[in-house]
């Protein structure tokens, strides 16, 4: 293993997706020297780059609109649990960020009169969602931010560096420790402020729409640093996730924009329309909220009316072939490469893990309960309550990223005396070295344990939950965290040791997964994305945020009434 590496900065941004890159740009323009890390490649991983189309912003270009109306829709989707301050910051901040990105050469789709096109996405009362095209809006945003961050002299980008621990002194951020993946060298980062932009924990589920690197590490880091998390039980399942036949080269979220654009029909295994059984109008409604659509599909499959792979059919067979080709353009070739012919066959879809509503509890500066520790993007909890409104993830990444970057830069300017102490970092460095040397045991690999976690979360902590399954999952996850983890064997490779990286993913991710299962067990009601078969109705006693902290080795939670 190589010698230790050491770096210093004013603001450390962990995670180079949409929120992280925006945070880096904002921190730099507020005077900070910024270090932007990604365990994969800055600007290439995370969830933003996978976003296909909708980005909500009350620009009022396609029809009269304002942030207050956007806020009302966001609060309504959140089923009573939104932090209204954070939701308001998101809605009010979105138009400025959209226009800023336009200035950085994001080519928002426009009508002939030059106005930005806006479409009405499910759950919105206005035509509000902007897009670049219907498949690569997130990729266009990431390309602009990659460009912006690479040209800024105050931002240093490091790819293939993963953060394994935050270093604290007297309960405040002093820096972080991580691994340089290509060499396995421990990395010490001295800094007064850290912004976690590590996304959600969708990797912990067998089927997911996001990149493979989002495993809840930021939640684990925050909890072990003493920070509080909030409403972590709420994980959105994306109703139209691709299920079968096998399709590669396209994100599994492909079908929602396609369905909305072309009017695809959802049919059960018998070829019948079924949404009307769940309170929707017959004939295919396209503005059904995500939680209701997910319920409808689950219930239909449970009733024995599923498709061969255990989902429902999405059919475009009623649409003229030429119209399909015109609408889908080059995408139809990707379908063809996968032997999918939409004029002759329906595809199968089923809800798929998509987005984590809960996360690190933050104030309106995006600061956690630990001084110097900020969180932005999907990992920040509160703005979306129990169910995120379609199109709110991209503005959340941009608005919160920008705000966290600015606030963290101001914080670091006020805290110029370093709290760093090598002695405080040493245990974290030692753990990296010791773990890398766990080569001789006969225990399974981290990858194998991760496969078990994914199956467990998918089977027992999915879109529909019950007490017995959640208890089983929580108990097993706790055993994994406190027992299995130490019995894993690491491959004896000096460099690019993915099993070493996976061990640390599990160390933090298992804590996040256990928090989710535990919080889901305690919330004995059904609300938004959290649906309990044994408590099928919303219960006013739980019109409250669940806050959780690590006390010793235990996750402890309490409910607090939602603040106005």
């Amino acid at each position, binding site marked *: 293993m190589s010698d230790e590496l050491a770096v210093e900065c004013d603001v450390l941004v962990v995670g180079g997706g949409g929120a992280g890159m925006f945070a880096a740009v904002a921190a730099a323009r507020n005077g900070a020297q910024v270090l932007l890390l990604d365990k994969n490649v800055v600007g*290439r991983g995370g969830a933003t780059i996978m976003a296909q189309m909708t980005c909500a912003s009350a620009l009022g270009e396609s029809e009269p609109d304002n942030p207050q109306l956007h806020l009302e829709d966001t609060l309504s989707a959140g089923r009573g649990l939104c932090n209204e301050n954070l939701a308001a910051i998101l809605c009010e901040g979105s138009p400025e960020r959209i226009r800023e990105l336009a200035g950085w050469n994001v080519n928002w789709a426009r009508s002939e009169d030059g106005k930005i096109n806006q479409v009405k996405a499910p759950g919105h009362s206005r035509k509000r969602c902007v897009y670049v095209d219907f498949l690569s809006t997130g990729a266009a945003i990431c390309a602009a931010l990659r460009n912006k961050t690479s040209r800024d002299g105050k931002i240093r980008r490091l790819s293939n560096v993963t953060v394994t621990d935050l270093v604290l002194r007297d309960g405040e951020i002093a820096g972080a420790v991580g691994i340089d993946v290509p060499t396995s060298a421990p990395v010490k980062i001295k800094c007064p402020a850290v912004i976690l932009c590590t996304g959600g924990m969708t990797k912990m589920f067998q089927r997911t729409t996001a990149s493979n690197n989002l495993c809840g590490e930021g939640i684990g880091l925050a909890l072990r640093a003493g920070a509080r998390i909030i409403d972590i039980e709420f994980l959105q399942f994306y109703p139209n996730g691709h299920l079968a036949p096998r399709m590669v080269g396209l994100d599994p979220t492909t079908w929602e924009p396609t369905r909305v654009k072309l009017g695809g029909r959802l049919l059960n295994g018998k070829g019948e329309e079924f949404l009307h059984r769940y309170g929707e109008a017959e004939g295919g409604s396209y503005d059904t909220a995500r939680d209701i659509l997910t319920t409808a599909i689950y219930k239909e499959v449970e009733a024995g009316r599923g498709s061969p792979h*255990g989902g429902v059919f999405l059919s475009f067979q009623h649409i003229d072939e030429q119209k399909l080709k015109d609408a889908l353009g080059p995408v139809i070739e990707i379908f063809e490469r996968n032997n999918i012919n939409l004029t002759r066959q329906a595809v199968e879809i089923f809800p798929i893990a998509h987005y984590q509503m809960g996360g690190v509890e933050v104030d309106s500066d995006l600061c956690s309960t630990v001084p110097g520790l900020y969180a932005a993007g999907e990992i920040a909890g509160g703005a979306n309550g129990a169910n995120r409104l379609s199109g709110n993830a991209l503005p959340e990444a941009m608005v919160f990223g920008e705000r966290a970057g600015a606030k963290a830069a101001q914080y670091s300017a006020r805290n110029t005396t370093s709290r760093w102490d090598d002695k405080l970092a040493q245990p974290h460095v030692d753990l990296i070295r010791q773990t890398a040397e766990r080569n001789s045991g006969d225990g399974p690999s981290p990858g194998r344990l991760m496969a078990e976690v994914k199956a467990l979360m998918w089977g027992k902590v999915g879109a529909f939950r019950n007490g017995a399954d959640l208890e089983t999952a929580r108990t097993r996850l706790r055993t994994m965290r406190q027992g299995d983890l130490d019995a894993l064997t690491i491959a004896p490779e000096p460099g690019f040791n993915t099993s070493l990286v996976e061990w640390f993913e599990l160390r933090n991710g298992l804590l996040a997964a256990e928090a989710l299962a535990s919080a889901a067990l305690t919330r004995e009601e059904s609300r938004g994305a959290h649906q309990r078969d044994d408590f099928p109705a919303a219960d006013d006693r739980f019109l409250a945020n669940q806050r959780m902290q690590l006390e010793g080795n235990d996750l402890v939670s309490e409910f607090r009434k939602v603040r106005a």
Partner: protein
Amino acid sequence: MTIAGQEHTAAVKTARLRIWRGTSRDNGRYQEYDVKFEDGDSVLDGLVRLRVDCDPSLAVRFSCFNANVCKECTMLIDGTVEYACIAKLQPRLMQLDPLPNLPIVRDLVTDTLSRKERF
């Protein structure tokens, strides 16, 4: 509520992957693995399963997984530069090499990063 299992019965086939293992072009060898797959599975699907089921020491780079977005899984497949996430497994011998003209980090991982993004 439980989720219905995969009730379909697709034909399981086998690909033999001949993979470059090593830390430079002068220091390495080919290692062969049999990987079971169903029609439509990608080379990356096979590599991920191989790491979990058989050899966790194999180094592969990817993050987006089968969406062809992150571009990290670029490698030589039977001598042609391809994305492992969209190239399909075939029921035959397939040779996987790291990208040419770039330093090898290990196995199928090459140093594709910009110099200024590294220590």
